[in-house]
């Protein structure tokens, strides 16, 4: 009996381990909900934010990754530009190598006033199977995932030919189908625990 119980416990642990990193959520499906505390101490819930806005842009960012840093100004500009149109931008830092103080200092120096959260034990990154920074997700007011991928196709703002996040938001706000719902770009692997 004890052996059977041990096997059951091990099997349960195995299931938990397998579930630790989920599969990437599908476009059109419910975006996995999460709650985190922002650096300013305020609680953030994705489902609540989605209900209160036309869209929420969840950005996985880094303080040290050059690819992520290449987008600092664009993150700030887009967050400011879309705030008045009912879109909330939030930043998530899942890197174990970048602590809260460093993330706060980075946000201040780059004028990032949108909510930024540390993701302890990279649980939210695992929930979305997010592998690198920067990666962005657009969640609509129904809590459905509508876009996943890059901000645009070029690290140099002047060379952008495909502003993918902007295109997705414009389509969403105009109640039009999003032409490109998933995109890819180079980035830095998230340093997981």
């Amino acid at each position, binding site marked *: 009996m004890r052996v059977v119980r041990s096997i059951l416990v091990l099997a349960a642990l195995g299931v938990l381990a397998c579930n630790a990193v989920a599969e990437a959520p599908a476009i059109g499906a419910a975006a996995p909900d999460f709650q985190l505390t922002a650096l300013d101490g305020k609680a953030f819930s994705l489902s609540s934010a989605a209900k209160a806005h036309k869209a929420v842009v969840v950005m996985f960012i880094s303080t040290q*990754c050059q690819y992520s840093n290449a987008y600092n100004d664009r993150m700030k500009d887009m967050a400011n530009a879309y705030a008045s149109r009912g879109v909330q931008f939030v930043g998530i830092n899942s890197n174990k*190598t970048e602590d809260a103080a460093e993330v706060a200092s980075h946000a201040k120096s780059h004028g990032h006033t949108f909510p930024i959260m540390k993701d302890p034990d990279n649980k939210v990154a695992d929930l979305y199977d997010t592998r690198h920074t920067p*990666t962005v997700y657009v969640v609509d007011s129904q809590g459905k995932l509508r876009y996943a991928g*890059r901000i645009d196709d070029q690290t140099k703002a002047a060379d952008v030919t495909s502003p993918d996040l902007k295109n997705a938001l414009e389509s969403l706000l105009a109640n039009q189908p999003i032409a490109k719902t998933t995109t890819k770009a180079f980035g*830095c*692997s998230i340093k997981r625990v």
Partner: protein
Amino acid sequence: MSVPGHGIWVSGGRAIVALLVLSSLAAASRSRLAGELDASALKQTVAREKGRVVLLNFWATWCVPCREEFPELSKLQTRHQREGLRVIGVSTDFPKERAAVEKFLAGERPSFPNYRKKSGGDDQDFIEAVDSSWGGELPFSVLYDRAGKKVRVYSGSLPLAGAEKEIRRLLAAR
């Protein structure tokens, strides 16, 4: 330019400038990069290695885990060179960081060839061409068997012990 009493210094100065220019030209011609590759040229490069086991590694100078695993890739190449392993590195650094790439390679002196991803185009096309499961994260490695068939991809840092075991298995299969 003529400065009374300083003619020798001026001509000496010109010679030094000329030497510096020549030396920088020579350094440029001694690039440690094997060349630039787009997705198509990369496929051809891997195909040319048919008969060897190939480990393709994508890296960047600013990518800390890439830098950390780089010396291990060199050791891996050296350990299994005679059995037929070919490690190939591909830098995905920004075009403006070519000097940083050269400096990094000069310091590392890798035992395997390194290319630079050709600038321009949409990175997504390059990423998809390498492997559809690749999201663009670095480092990223792809292992091919002697027939040139893709056997495995490694997202993030290479799990060295496991990867070497797999490489040994592929090298043993003739």
